[in-house]
């Protein structure tokens, strides 16, 4: 297994050159995702999360830049990558059992029939039911079974929990974590709700407006950022300011401390959601991605 699951350098994707309204879905994205991580891809709707996942799955070619998946171009890793699209496409005329059998046929030598059937059985699905008769949550289950059945090294999920009720969500998240625990699968999940990913993910990729706003290990990101509260007009100079707000006589800010902070400042660790929102609201804030990466490199 390779050390790096995904590596992007100046990655860009543009749609529809013939249409005048064509724009860049992703522009100048660079990040590294080490293997064995559970990564949350977060960002507002239309930020480019789906595009990034589709590029990693080998469904499209980048317009510019490079994306290395499991050490090579996306097309070569196809057999080792699992993908579930946002709309969970399945063939409506097949039954559940036939869908799984097709998965086995299309992934010879790599199919784990027991695991796939276990996921389907967890939802009490009738194997003879046709896909077109299933509800959204049940389809998600089948789609996940297909993706996990091929024992991928990298699993890409585009808003997987959207259709699921809280019970199913917890159960399937448990299945995914168990997969990561047992096989060291790298899991990349996109969502526009940060809170539901906070416990299970240890890596963050924040995408806004087609660009990478923030990337790195969640623990490190939370350690290197501090929420401070002090009197207005305080000079925050030596520190990098991500976002600052003055209300009345109080100044609150999210900063990356460059030096020990004065004792009279009230400080606290930001939550992941606060971190994400601050970066999204302030596109100009410089991303510490390279700083985090270089620290990883020196530690590794």
């Amino acid at each position: 297994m390779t050390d790096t699951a995904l590596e992007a350098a100046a990655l860009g994707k543009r749609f529809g050159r013939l249409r005048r309204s064509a724009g860049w879905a992703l522009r100048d994205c660079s990040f590294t995702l080490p293997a064995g991580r559970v990564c949350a891809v977060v960002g507002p709707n239309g930020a480019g999360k789906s595009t990034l996942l589709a590029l990693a799955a080998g469904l499209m070619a980048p317009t510019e830049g490079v994306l290395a998946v499991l050490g090579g171009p996306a097309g070569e890793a196809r057999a080792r990558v699992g993908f579930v699209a946002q709309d969970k496409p399945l063939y409506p005329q097949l039954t559940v059992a036939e869908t799984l059998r097709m998965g086995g046929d299309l992934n010879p030598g790599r199919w784990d029939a027991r695991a796939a059937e276990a996921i389907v059985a967890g939802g009490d699905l009738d194997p003879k039911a046709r896909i077109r008769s299933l509800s959204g949550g049940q389809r998600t289950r089948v789609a996940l079974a297909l993706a996990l059945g091929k024992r991928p090294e990298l699993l890409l999920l585009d808003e997987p929990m959207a259709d699921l009720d809280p019970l199913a969500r917890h159960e399937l998240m448990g299945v995914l974590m168990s997969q990561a625990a047992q096989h060291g699968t790298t899991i990349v999940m996109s969502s526009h709700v940060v809170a539901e990913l906070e416990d299970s993910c240890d890596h963050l990729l924040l995408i806004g407006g087609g660009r990478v706003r923030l990337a790195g290990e969640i623990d490190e990101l939370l350690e290197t950022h501090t929420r401070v509260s002090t009197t207005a007009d305080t000079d925050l100079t030596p520190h990098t300011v991500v976002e600052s707000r003055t209300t009345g006589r109080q100044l609150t800010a999210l900063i990356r401390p460059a030096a020990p902070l004065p004792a009279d400042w009230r400080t606290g660790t930001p939550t992941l959601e606060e971190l994400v929102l601050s970066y999204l609201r302030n596109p100009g804030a410089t991303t510490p991605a390279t700083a985090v990466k270089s620290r990883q490199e020196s530690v590794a």
Partner: protein
Amino acid sequence: MLEYRIDRHSGVATYVQIVQQTKQALRLGLLEPGDKLPTAREVVEATAINPNTVLKAYRELEREGLVEARRGLGTFVRRGLGAAPADSPLHTELEDWTAKALESGLDRDDVAALFTAVLDKHFSARQPTEQRPSEQPAPTKHSQGEPS
């Protein structure tokens, strides 16, 4: 089977909660030396947290000498913590004392404040004194259910 309950809003890091709950189980005698801790896979399947968090917690416990990881077999309890298993005399005395405090009109916060004050007096600055040598677990078997 030891089950962990993660409280996401407690402000305490998840891995710390696992460490604390494991120690609690050791104290109460739910885990004895030689018992196998649940595998990371079992824990995350039930709690849907990141497996690295569990591994981090187990590493912390190993660092404190409470458990040891045996390659390919799992993580096993090395030594116990329980100076006061559930039906020890200390436990019974504490029960009696609390009942008396309730009778004399103290509410929960009062009791906690009183107890904390005494704790602080005897244990300076949160020094863990769990490394007491030659600690034998209580010879009596307890009815708290089979630790598995």
